[in-house]
């Protein structure tokens, strides 16, 4: 018992430094309000992931809440065999897919059955991009463009892209979270990345009039 008391962070201590496993242990000991710190750590990530699957803000909010409630209810079942984040991600993905199955069954079928046709995909936009293309767009414009590009992906590709390239899970964690093999996750990721690139290309490519303008500007600079 004395050992358990020592683990509890003292009032005013920096809880953000306490590792997930220790917070979980304290929550299981009855300090349920500490679960709020785990929520703060991962709410953004879980929201990204369920948005990646559902592509709908109202559904995503409900699933976000359901995912954390479920994690709290089953926190004693967390055995630490994987990281808490992976365990939580798996819960969120299951909740999001259940939501799809319930309300949008046709879309759910497309996630389960779509083939990994990576090699059928041929990039078409092969002109080079402007140097630092983001400098020609305002920060909000760029964020909107990237968000549109992610939303344009089919659910099968959107979920893998969000896990790997927005949330930076490892390839292995991504495959585990999606419940698919590593080669399948990698094949989907390749296709997702190529489609993202294809979507962005027309907005970021070096156009002939930009090249001309750059040359004129450069010439004037040296005159």
């Amino acid at each position, binding site marked *: 018992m004395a050992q358990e008391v020592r683990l509890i962070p003292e009032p005013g201590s920096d809880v953000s430094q306490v590792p997930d496993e220790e917070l979980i242990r304290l929550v299981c000991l009855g300090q349920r309000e500490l679960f709020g710190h785990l929520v703060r750590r991962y709410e953004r990530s879980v929201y990204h992931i369920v948005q990646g699957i559902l592509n709908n803000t109202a559904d995503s909010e409900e699933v976000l809440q359901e995912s954390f409630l479920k994690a*709290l209810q089953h926190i004693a079942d967390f055995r630490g065999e994987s990281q808490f984040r992976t365990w939580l991600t798996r819960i969120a993905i299951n909740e999001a897919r259940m939501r799809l199955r319930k309300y949008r069954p046709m879309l759910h079928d497309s996630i389960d059955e779509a083939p990994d046709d990576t*090699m059928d995909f041929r990039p078409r936009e092969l002109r080079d*991009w402007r140097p630092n293309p983001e400098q020609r767009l305002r920060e909000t414009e760029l*964020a909107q463009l990237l968000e549109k590009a992610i939303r344009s992906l089919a659910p099968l590709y959107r979920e893998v892209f969000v896990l790997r390239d927005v949330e930076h899970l490892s390839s292995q964690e991504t495959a585990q979270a999606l419940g698919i093999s590593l080669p399948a996750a990698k094949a989907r990721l390749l296709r997702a990345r190529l489609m993202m690139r294809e979507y962005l290309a027309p907005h970021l490519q070096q156009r002939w009039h930009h090249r001309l303008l750059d040359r004129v500007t450069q010439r004037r600079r040296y005159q």
Partner: protein
Amino acid sequence: MIRCEDVLRELSNYIDVEVTEELCRQIEEHLQACHKCAVLLSTTRKTLSLVANNSRILELPSDVSQRLMERLAAHWS
């Protein structure tokens, strides 16, 4: 000598440094000679860096965060 199709198939693994040293060497040799594959690689990398460096994508609205905490608080009180 590997072909463009091989580079395309391994592009993601190459970016993630998940290819063998030998394959990495072959891809780099191909990239030096093939402008299209070099553009494909640089623009795919740029795509990923734009996404990674933009924290405003799929932003969590503050009211969503607040309602989440309220629902959880109601549950554990």
